[in-house]
C-alpha cells in the first residue's frame, strides 16, 4: 500500500505547516511509514510551495519521496496545478480552494473534486485567512479518513504556540463538524 499526497499553494498560505502537521500526526500516532519533501521558493510571500507526502505500511515502498501517482491532492492556488496534474491519479480526491481557483478551469481533469472557498470562509468565520490551511486539513481527513482527527488536534497543540491553538483547532474542526 502506497498513498501519495500532493499539497500545493503560494508562500504564506500555510502549505508547509499543513504538510508538517499531517506528517507528524502520521508519524507519531499511526504505525505507517511516512516520508515527504518540501519545495518552496525564496519569497516568503508569493513563491510557489509544494509538499509531497508518501505513506506506506512497507518501508521499502517509500524510498522515492515524490508523488508520481497521487491519490490525494490539495490546491490552494492555481499556479502549479497544470504542472502537477500529470502526477495525480484519475479519480483522485482533489481539494480546491475556490477563493483563488476558478472551478471552470478544472473541467479538463478527471478528478473527484471537493471544493470550498476555504480562505473566504476562514476570513468570514475566524477573521483571518491564516487558518484556511487547517480548514482544508479537516476536510481532507473527513473525506479520506487517513488519520484520527483527535490525533491531529493533539499535534496542533504540540507544534504551535499556545495562543494559536484555539483558532487553529476550531478551523480544523469546521469542515468535520459541518452537517
Amino acid at each position, binding site marked *: 500500500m502506497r498513498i501519495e499526497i500532493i499539497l500545493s499553494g503560494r508562500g504564506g498560505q500555510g502549505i508547509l505547516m499543513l504538510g508538517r502537521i499531517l506528517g507528524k500526526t502520521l*508519524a*507519531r500516532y499511526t504505525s505507517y511509514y*511516512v*516520508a515527504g*519533501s518540501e519545495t518552496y521558493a525564496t519569497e516568503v510571500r508569493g513563491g510557489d510551495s509544494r509538499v509531497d507526502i508518501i505513506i506506506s505500511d512497507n518501508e*521499502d515502498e517509500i524510498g522515492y519521496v515524490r508523488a508520481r501517482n497521487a491519490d490525494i491532492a490539495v490546491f490552494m492556488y492555481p499556479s502549479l496545478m497544470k504542472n502537477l496534474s500529470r502526477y495525480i491519479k484519475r479519480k483522485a480526491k482533489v481539494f480546491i480552494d475556490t477563493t483563488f481557483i476558478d472551478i471552470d478551469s478544472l473541467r479538463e481533469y478527471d478528478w473527484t473534486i471537493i471544493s470550498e472557498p476555504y480562505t473566504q470562509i476562514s476570513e468570514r468565520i475566524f477573521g483571518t485567512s491564516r487558518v484556511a490551511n487547517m480548514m482544508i486539513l479537516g476536510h481532507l481527513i473527513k473525506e479520506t479518513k487517513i488519520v484520527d482527527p483527535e490525533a491531529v488536534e493533539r499535534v496542533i497543540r504540540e507544534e504551535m504556540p499556545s495562543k494559536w491553538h484555539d483558532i487553529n483547532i476550531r478551523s480544523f474542526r469546521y469542515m468535520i463538524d459541518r452537517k
Partner: protein
Amino acid sequence: MRIDYISGNRAIAEAAIASGLKFFAGYPITPSSDIFEYLAEELPRRGGYVIQFEDELASIYAVIGASWTCSKAMTATSGPGFSLMVEGISIAVMTETPLVIAYIMRAGPATGVPTKTGQYDVFQAEYGFHGGLPIPVFAPSNPQEAYDLTIKAFNTSEILRTPVVLLSDASIANMFGKVLIREAGEIEIIDRRSIEILRKKGCEWSLDDVYEMKCVGDGYDIYVETLTHDEKNIYRPTTDVQRRLMWRLYRKIINNREVLFEYSFHNYGNKRCRNMIITYGSTFSSVSEAVRELNKNEEDFCVFKLKTLYPINEKIFYEKTRDVDKIFVVENNVGLYVKEIRSILRDKDVISISVIDLEYPDPDEIVERVREWL
C-alpha cells in the same frame, strides 16, 4: 525515545545535541542554515554555545579552538563555505582535532543554485584540503540516516581524533521522514576522555595510532603544532618524522574501515542480483523508484547504498558484487564517485549513470539510461 516527522537538517541538529555538542560556530549558508537556526535556539538551553562569525574561516578556527577545550564542536556549511574552510580542516587533520562538519551540498560550482541540490562535492569532502590525507565522510540518504550518521560522526571524530564530514545535500535537507529520536542516555556516546577506557577493555576500533588527547584546562601545558611534529609535538623537519606522521595519520582512519564503512543492501525480493545499482545520498530516493520499474521486467536489480564514502571496506564490495553481471553507479553529478568504485572493482564492468538534476533525479530518466546498457 520518541518518534517525530522531521527534515534531514533538523535530524542532524537533534543528533548533534544528543551526541553532546557543546559548541557550534558558523556562517549561515543555504541549504545548511536551518541546522544553525535550530541550534541557535536549542543549544544554549542545554548549556552549549552558538556563535555566528564573520565568515567560514573564523568559524572553522573557532571550532578547532573549542575542541581543544574538550568541548564537542561542529559547524555546518555548503560548497562555497567549505571551500573557505579547507585550510582550517587541514590544520585539524594535522593537529588531530576532533570536529564535525555538516556539509549540505547545493548545485554548484561557485554559488550555483543555493536552494537546489547536487552531489558535485563528493571529492572535495574527502580530499579537498591540502596534505593528501582523506578524512571520514558519511553520506545519509534520508532523515533517519542523517540522525544515526551524525551520532556516528561525533563518535568517530572523538575516538580517532579527526575531523569528520557529514555529507548531505539540499534534497535531504528538505526531505522529511519518520525518525526515531533517541536521547542521550539511549545511545552509545563516546568522547575522547573515554578512549583510554576503550583501549584497556578492548573494542572493535583499532586505536594503536591514536594518541591520548589532553585539553586546555586539564592542567597540562598544551602544545598544538601544525608543522610536522614528532610524538612529543616538537617540530622536526626530517623525512623520517614526516614518514612516521603521515603513515600514522593515514593508518588511523584506514585501519578502522570495518567499523566506519556503513551501507545497506536492497534486493527487493530477488533471489539473485544480476544487475546492481550503487548509489548514495539523495539519489537513492530516485533509484529506489527506478529499480521498482526495472524489476517489473525481471531484470533482477538490486541496490547497494553507500552510507560511508571514505574509508571504504573493499571486502564488502568484493562480497556483494561477486555474482553480479553489471554494475551501474548512479549519481547527481558528471560521474565522480564512480572513479573510486572503478579503482576497487577493477575486473568488473562499472557503468556511470550521471543524472544532473536540480531536484530528485527523475526515476524514468534513470530507467531509460540504464536500459541502454541491458
